[in-house]
């Protein structure tokens, strides 16, 4: 607004209790600092308004390269905070004009933030994805039918029927496997969230996404959780992938604030 070349605004990364220990660099390469209030520390960076403020940031978000850089840098700062203790990750592009506004937020919501941090203490988010075979693949793998017919037309139809039955059987088996797995993982975690299956996660050659779950797991119980991930081999064409450790992005819930 001022048009000053070096005008900055505040980019918020996370809310936690402890300030950064070592030097951490943020989305603009700026040193990340803590804005402290009411026993809380907000990880914040002073970023140039010309690139990260309104309206520039909105335009920049539409560049995949810019977004990728910002997302990775944001994630790196959040991870640095997690390394110090319980951390509430803040969504990308949360901007404030000055320290006072951030302090006011921390002060007004101190007990809510503290309660949220309490839920995250000693716990870590893990991601579990399950992929099934692409429909065509499953069909190719269909076993030759034992039934035979002398007429080529009929035998073709019988093969087609066998392929269809086989496909349905595979889908059913994979679904049941995923349900059992999710139930087991839920039992070994303190909270779980199912992310969308149609979202930005399908990748070339990985098959059909059957489960995309996030689980908040007690660090002390991770071994059991990990065992639960690998406990049961699913149908041959089902692949289970564990991702993490993640900052608790999927469990960054603060009553009152999150209801907006």
């Amino acid at each position: 607004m001022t048009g000053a070349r070096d005008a900055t605004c505040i980019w918020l990364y996370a809310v936690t209790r402890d300030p950064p220990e070592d030097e951490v660099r943020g989305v603009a390469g700026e040193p990340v600092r803590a804005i402290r209030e009411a026993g809380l520390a907000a990880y914040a960076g002073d970023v140039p308004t010309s690139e990260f403020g309104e309206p520039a940031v909105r335009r920049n978000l539409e560049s995949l390269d810019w977004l990728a850089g910002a997302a990775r840098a944001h994630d790196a700062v959040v991870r640095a905070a997690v390394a110090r203790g319980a951390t509430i990750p803040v969504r990308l592009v949360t901007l404030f004009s000055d320290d006072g506004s951030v302090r006011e937020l921390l002060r007004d919501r101190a007990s809510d933030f503290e309660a949220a941090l309490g839920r995250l203490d000693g716990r870590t988010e893990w991601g579990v994805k399950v992929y099934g075979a692409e429909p065509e693949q499953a069909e190719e793998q269909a076993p030759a039918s034992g039934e035979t017919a002398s007429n080529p037309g009929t035998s073709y139809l019988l093969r087609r029927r066998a392929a269809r039955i086989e496909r349905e059987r595979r889908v059913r088996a994979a679904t049941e496997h995923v349900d059992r797995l999710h139930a087991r993982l839920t039992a070994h975690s303190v909270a779980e969230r199912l992310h969308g299956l149609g979202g930005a996660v399908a990748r070339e050659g990985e098959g059909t996404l059957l489960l995309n779950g996030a689980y908040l797991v007690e660090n002390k119980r991770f071994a059991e959780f990990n065992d639960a991930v690998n406990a049961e081999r699913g149908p041959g064409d089902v692949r289970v992938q564990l991702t993490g450790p993640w900052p608790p992005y999927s469990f960054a819930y603060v009553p009152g604030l999150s209801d907006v």
Partner: protein
Amino acid sequence: MSVNGGLPDVSGSSGAPANLGDILERVLDKGLVIAGDIRVNLLDIELLTVKLRLVVASLETAREVGIDWWERDPWLQGREDDHDRDRGRELESENRRLRRRVAALEADGRRELESGSADDLDDLDEFDEDEERDRQEKRR
């Protein structure tokens, strides 16, 4: 990464390194929403994933970072463009050919099955639909 309270050592486990697709999914769609005093319309941010599909200049770049979901999205594929209309016509005529072929096979099949098991006739009836769907899936 180490965490107060003892984060398990995962070097030996199957925890995959974070790829950009996973990171974007979390920093854009998850994480605490706080309305800063500089308002960036949150709706814009939520629409970002949609916008992304439209602004990605190079499909290769996008695939490198593991994003290709728009290729499966009928809405974004613009089913109504010329190319697809052509494809639609192609499919229609192929479908007609197939129906004729099926009719012929059915005639054969019925003769064959009169001496065999009768419940296969049900499958013959389902065949039309099934085949059509499969063809269309393959084409995608």
